[in-house]
């Protein structure tokens, strides 16, 4: 709990890191209608694709400097030698990042979805999808950033992007399932299952990767 | 099992219009293999030469 509080306070002070991705998401969602002719039915055609890509990009930006500062000031090394589990610390750090960026982005997804489709039920189903997918993307990009710790975040994003693409495919399929009312819950369960594995494995793998960096 | 599937050499090349696809894929595969074998052999040769100089 103590770690959670510390991480929360640390991140809250770095406004750019958590507010930046939310604003980028907002901008993409506002920019989308401007690039399409302002007809409601045309807007809906590509809306969800843009939504998922916007979530992907905002999560990529959110994790950009997740370990950089701790790495530069030496607090990563201190955390490793502390008694508490390093992988748990990483898991909690990712959770805080998701709390401050993933949840607001998911709420915005619901709002934009309702604004575009004017279908409350559909937009309400988008909310859990956005929550789960943002957490998955966040975890994957944290993995990428740990790999390219002192090499810039672009390399990390490039190497983890292929792992994130199957999630995008599932998200696309789940929208089709939602629109035709066929087994949408199945897709939610599939994503939740993936998340439950990722949530455990990623912090463990990241802790080993960071140890490899600091050895 | 080993009957020649075409009536003439020209027919084998043309393959009813599909020859262009089949032969171009063959060229790509063989070219890729050739390039990789050559590059690795060359790299090994270069390293050996360097190590020889040190010796």
């Amino acid at each position, binding site marked *: 709990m103590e770690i959670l509080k510390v991480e929360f306070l640390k991140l809250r002070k770095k406004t750019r890191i958590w507010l930046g991705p939310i604003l980028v998401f907002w901008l993409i969602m506002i920019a989308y209608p401007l690039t399409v002719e302002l007809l409601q039915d045309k807007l809906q055609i590509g809306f969800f694709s843009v939504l998922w890509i916007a979530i992907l990009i905002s999560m990529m930006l959110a994790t950009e400097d997740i370990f950089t500062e701790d790495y530069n000031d030496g607090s990563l090394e201190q955390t490793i030698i502390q008694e508490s589990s390093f992988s748990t610390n990483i898991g909690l750090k990712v959770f805080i990042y998701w709390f401050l960026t993933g949840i607001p982005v998911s709420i915005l997804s619901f709002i934009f979805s309702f604004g575009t489709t004017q279908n409350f039920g559909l937009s309400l189903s988008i909310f859990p999808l956005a929550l789960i997918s943002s957490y998955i993307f966040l975890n994957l990009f944290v993995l990428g950033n740990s790999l390219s710790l002192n090499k810039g975040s672009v390399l990390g994003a490039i*190497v983890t992007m292929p792992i994130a693409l199957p999630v995008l495919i599932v998200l696309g399929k789940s929208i089709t399932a939602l629109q035709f009312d066929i087994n949408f819950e199945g897709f939610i369960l599939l994503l939740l299952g993936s998340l439950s594995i990722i949530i455990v494995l990623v912090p463990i793998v990241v802790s080993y*990767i960071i140890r490899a960096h600091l050895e | *099992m080993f009957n020649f599937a075409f009536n003439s050499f020209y027919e084998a090349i043309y393959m009813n219009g599909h020859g262009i*696809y089949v032969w171009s894929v063959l060229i790509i595969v063989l070219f890729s293999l050739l390039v990789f074998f050559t590059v*690795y*052999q060359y*790299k090994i040769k270069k390293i050996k030469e360097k190590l020889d100089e040190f010796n």
Partner: protein
Amino acid sequence: MIKKFIHQFASPKTFLLQVDKFYGLIFFTSLCIYIFSIIWGLLFTPEDFVQGNSFRIMYLHVPASFLSQSLYIAMAVSSATYLIWRVKLAAYFVIAIAPIGAMTTFIALVSGSIWGIPTWGTWWQWDARITSTLILFIMYLGLISLHNSFSNYEKADKLLSWLVIVGAVNIPIIKKSVDWWTTLHQSASITLTNKPSIDPVMLYPLIGTIIGFFGLIICLILISSKNQIFIREKNKSWVKDYV
């Protein structure tokens, strides 16, 4: 016991000596099998009733696409071996296989695209198998660029191994994509459990090309690993003696 076995047979020196002993044999046998099967498949098998002569691309496409996934699995096994038992040779294998895996995936993509023109009427379709193979190709490139961005080889090996293991989740997705999603691709014609759905006249040359191509790729991996060993162990006295 496994650890003892691995350490005994996986020293780079022993490996190099074994490679020199068997390389020529594997290379020439595979080359002969490959050339023979290619000629057999391209010129001596009857025309396909549905696809016409374009089906002959199968003899070039299937071995490459089969190996593109198998090589990734080989990389994942090598990565696990390196991370668990700290076998240096396994780490050399991982980075030696990556460019060759990228090459086979590239061949699979290009040959598949060319095959698609006369068969499906399109050279590219965003269907599950093609997209996931493209993802695999990008992954190979990502792995190579990650390894190249570190000058410290040991660190690069560890990071690469972790990424390879995590990325292995894509392999079952690629394998099963044809069954899970509606796609233009047909299901696997040859499986371990069922009788092949392909006629023996066409099947035998296909098996020949797979074996031949597999052998040639093994040879490529052997010389690529040899290259890695020379790069990494160039300061060791045994390498100087060997050269």
